[in-house]
């Protein structure tokens, strides 16, 4: 059962080196061979450090795993990936780390705290705005996905994530590409803070993940834009070397990379890794 994981991790290594998106579909298909190892002894407490944007979908998967293994208790620590990476560097005990980008995962693997990480999803930014659209933003009548430069006026109040956190790194890349690097009015500490300010109507627009837009439902409007694809961030997951509960950690990662995990991620709005 365990050995079958070598296949996806090999495919992952390929996907990591080749930055193009073409191999993503193949890679996801190959992960489907691993199914949840229900026969394993999985019990005790499992501690999962995960990016804030994974809150809802990981909660669901965690409930499912606990239903399959009644003796298992899962503790989630959801926060900005950078904050989590810093906590792990400082020796926080955890079994699994799921980061919102590869840079923060690299901090953990470079520090020798985890072996290879496997990407399991990716996310793209969207331009979210309050439902009543106070700045009167307009989407041009074109076929295909417009550039963010066509959606955003320079004088709007714009919230983005701080460049220190993954969504902010992606936002900076998007805005730099479009020549709009000087438009943001506030650099928030995580993506949910951006979403809150959009929901409250205190900013005209914000750059948030597609998954956040789906979470917010009809409380915000949102448009996709063309620069998001190139600036998308991949979510890697790794079992930490010093995991107190490696069996449960592996079971969680297996579930995440299984068909079920893939479906849950897709439903939440994530893209292929």
């Amino acid at each position: 059962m365990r050995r079958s994981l070598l296949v996806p991790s090999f495919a992952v290594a390929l996907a990591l080196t080749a930055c193009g998106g073409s191999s993503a579909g193949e890679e996801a298909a190959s992960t489907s061979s691993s199914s949840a190892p229900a026969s394993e002894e999985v019990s005790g407490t499992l501690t999962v450090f995960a990016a804030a944007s994974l809150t809802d979908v990981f909660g669901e998967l965690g409930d499912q795993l606990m239903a399959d293994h009644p003796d298992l208790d899962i503790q989630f620590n959801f926060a900005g990936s950078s904050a989590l990476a810093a906590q792990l560097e400082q020796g926080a005990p955890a079994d699994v780390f799921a980061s919102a980008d590869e840079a923060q995962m690299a901090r953990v693997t470079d520090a020798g705290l985890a072996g290879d990480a496997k990407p399991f999803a990716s996310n793209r930014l969207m331009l979210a705005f309050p439902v009543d659209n106070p700045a009167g933003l307009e989407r041009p009548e074109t076929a295909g996905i417009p550039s963010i430069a066509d959606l955003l006026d320079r004088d709007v109040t714009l919230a983005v994530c701080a460049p220190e956190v993954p969504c902010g790194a992606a936002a900076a890349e998007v805005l730099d590409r479009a020549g709009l690097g000087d438009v943001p009015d506030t650099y928030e500490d995580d993506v949910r803070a951006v979403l809150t300010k959009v929901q409250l109507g205190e900013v005209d627009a914000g750059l948030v993940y597609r998954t956040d837009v789906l979470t917010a439902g009809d409380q915000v409007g949102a448009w996709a834009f063309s620069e998001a694809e190139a600036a998308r961030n991949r979510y890697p997951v790794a079992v930490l070397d010093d995991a107190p509960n490696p069996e449960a950690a592996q079971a969680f990662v297996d579930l995440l990379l299984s068909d079920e995990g893939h479906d849950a991620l897709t439903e939440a709005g994530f893209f292929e890794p």
Partner: protein
Amino acid sequence: MSRAPDGGRIPAPLLVPAALGTAFLVLPVVGLLVRAPWSSLGAQLAAPGVGEALRLSLISATLATLVSLVLGVPLAWVLARSRIRGRSVLRALVTVPLVLPPVVGGVALFLVLGRRGVLGGPLYDAFGISIPFTTTAVVLAETFVAMPFLVISVEGALRAGDARFEDVAATLGADRWTTFRRVTLPLVAPGVAAGAVLCWARALGEFGATITFAGNFPGTTQTMPLAVYLALQREPEAAIVLSLILLAVSLATLLLLRDRWLGRAVP
């Protein structure tokens, strides 16, 4: 005479917890000093944005203290001396920011002063003035969180003060405003000073309400605590350096003030 040698000694049941308390409060700061990257200190200090964040922090904390003094001292007087009904409810209400998580305080400020807020909405519609994401918002957030410290200190000083001086002033024909200016205020000056220092220190360290209500933009709303928090996510060493700068500046300011101001007032 028999009390003299004992008077200088601290009883063991007090000494041990006091020593533990001191260690608990001081050791983390020592930890910062030990872990500080002294070799790269110069480079970290010269990093862009550090001076800006420090300047903004000092200015906004000082402005927040001034606003708190102007509004908080009269409020403390009302709480300590007036006989209005519902005074204890009023006291509970104005100390709510002490227990409210500052992030919630920031959201609450949005609901009142944001551009969709109860007061901020009409202001925005009529004049196009939007308070969030400005330095004004930083000062307001800090004032919201820090003013209760000043109010409580000053109210305590007023209650502990001898009201008979005020009665004497009244019998000599001074009205209540004159009494307040010429008698009450000088009497409680040390309490006001102590409260102002507490208030300033709390404002200087304010994080939650500021990042929520004022956002985070270098030079406009990014104060030192915000810079420290974000640096911590990227590079903990930089965060330690920023914290040490904040620590050094606040200690220097407080020591200076104590000598100049508190030192004269407090025996």
